[in-house]
């Protein structure tokens, strides 16, 4: 005990508490409380650096950002007095903001839907094992190891919207195979260009969804599948009625993770389109507001909207997960 006590303040504070003679403090409730506090105080101390850092850099900064969003600090000389939700309302009066939100929605729907479908298909194809499975798995997941910036370099080339005679990427391929009707302007198309922009994102993340689903598929006990087969289920029926219902938590996780990445998409857009207005999304709009227009209050307002959009579905998800874990006795 003495060794531990001298080793550090944290241990001295009570890590060795239970071993000390207790007779002198069993008596009062206060003394028992002291014992209890001594048993958990060291662990709290051990986590306290992280609590401080997270408190300051996550919650403190979010608080600061919120205060900025509620102020009129649009230029360095402004005094930053409280203006309530003015900035939040004013944003909707600008042409650029609703367009950026619209782009983000199109991107998110196509990206989440596409990655989920392709990832699910890949998982399904690999589930029962197939020749070369490790090679396929490695290949489908590889884009995940690469940055959005690097992905953007090649996809900007692939989705080059230049006219057919100067086309470099997929358009050139379409022309070569006489599939001219497929030639298009990709992400530069108004309205649905963002659907094309989701293509590289799907390419990058459907392997991740595949891994989640594969883990899910293989987590379903074989006995369960066998039982359904014995009951006369076809192989597809087994998937439909036994396996798929078990995959709901996996699907939810995938939607949350892909969805939250999608809402804050920034690197990919910058790498492919730069700051062209046609591919504007909230994160890019915020970028130019903060670093080009230099309007901190407006930038903070956009950031707040992003935070709200993510929080709306991440917080219930976290609460649900923690509750489920606790009920499972973790």
């Amino acid at each position: 005990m003495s060794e531990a006590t001298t080793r550090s303040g944290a241990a001295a504070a009570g890590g060795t508490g239970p071993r000390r003679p207790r007779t002198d403090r069993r008596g009062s409730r206060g003394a028992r409380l002291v014992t209890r506090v001594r048993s958990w105080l060291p662990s709290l101390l051990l986590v306290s650096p992280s609590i401080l850092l997270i408190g300051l850099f996550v919650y403190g900064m979010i608080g600061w950002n919120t205060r900025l969003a509620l102020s009129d600090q649009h230029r360095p000389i402004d005094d930053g007095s409280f203006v309530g939700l003015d900035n939040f309302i004013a944003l909707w009066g600008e042409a650029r903001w609703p367009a950026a939100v619209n782009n983000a929605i199109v991107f998110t729907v196509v990206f989440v839907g596409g990655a989920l479908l392709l990832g699910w298909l890949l998982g399904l194809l690999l589930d029962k094992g197939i020749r070369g499975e490790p090679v396929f798995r490695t290949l489908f997941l590889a884009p995940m190891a690469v940055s959005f910036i690097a992905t953007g370099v090649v996809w900007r080339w692939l989705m080059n919207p230049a006219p057919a005679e100067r086309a470099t990427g997929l358009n050139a391929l379409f022309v070569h195979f006489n599939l001219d009707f497929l030639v298009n302007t990709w992400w530069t198309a108004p309205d649905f260009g963002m659907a094309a922009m989701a293509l590289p994102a799907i390419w990058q993340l459907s392997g991740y969804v595949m891994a989640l689903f594969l883990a899910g598929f293989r987590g379903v006990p074989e006995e369960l599948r066998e039982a359904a087969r014995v009951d006369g289920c076809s192989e597809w029926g087994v998937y439909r009625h036994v396996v798929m219902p078990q995959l709901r938590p996996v699907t939810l996780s995938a939607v949350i993770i892909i969805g939250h990445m999608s809402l804050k998409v920034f690197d990919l857009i910058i790498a492919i389109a730069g700051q062209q207005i046609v591919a504007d999304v909230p994160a890019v709009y915020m970028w130019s507001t903060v670093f080009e227009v230099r309007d901190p209050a407006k930038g903070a307002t956009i950031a707040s909207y992003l935070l709200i959009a993510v929080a709306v579905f991440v917080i219930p998800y976290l609460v649900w997960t923690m509750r489920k874990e606790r009920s499972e006795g973790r």
Partner: protein
Amino acid sequence: MSRSAPDRVIAPGGGTAGTTRRGQAVKFAVLVVLAAFFLMPMYVLVVTGFKPFAEATAARAWLLPQAWSTEGWAAAWTALAPGLWNSVRMVVPAAVISAVLGSLNGYVMARWRFPGADTVFTLFLFGMFIPYQAVMIPLQQIMVSSGLMGGLFPLILAHTVYGIPICTLIFRNYYASIPHTLIEAARVDGAGLLRTYAHVILPVSAPAFAVTLIWQFTSAWNDFLFAVFLTGPRSWPVTVQLNNVAGSMVVPYNQQMAAAVLASLPTLLIYLLLGRYFMRGLMAGALKG
């Protein structure tokens, strides 16, 4: 919540009951087509990288180089070398510090809880999902006003702090799988918090350290947002330099593509060599440790 779930992905596939040979062939064919789709950008990157400047044109876009050349790679290396070095110097400390903090946190959250530990843990986890835009302006203002801007420190700090949540999650789930009896035995022997950590927990932590270090390395290496507003030209990591190279109209395609490959090689190699640990980090993000 079974811990083995992520590993199953690595394990060879289950039985082939119910699948015919013909079905297998169809599945295989579909997979090959999909593999081609996944390989297409990689083909373009490598092939274009090996083209001499004059050949990197629209007309020869999809063809193999007539004359294989390394001039694109040499030029890309010259442009990216400082960024690659900055990335290494930034990623290593960030990964190590957040892994160590994550290990301590995970140990407490899994094995030595204090009242409110669950709440603290959930608050940590939310930090994993927040859009970094929501902390961007204050973070930059703090760094500027404290005079820390200019070097790599702000970036190291950001990656360390915002890496704590996922590191904590990975270690917590890992430690939760260590048999209770092992820790109870140490406690009965009178070992305190730190002694139990040093003698029981730390010696078995290597796999979790591998997962967190690789995860942190990869995400810090690939980050662009923090990198671009927390560093100046002197300390730009490789993603920012790559974007500058590729965003420029005058840089020919062979150099752009070669640069993208160079910037991705470290994380790709880690993924290929240590894929198992990379995967576990990936799966931890889904809270299914």
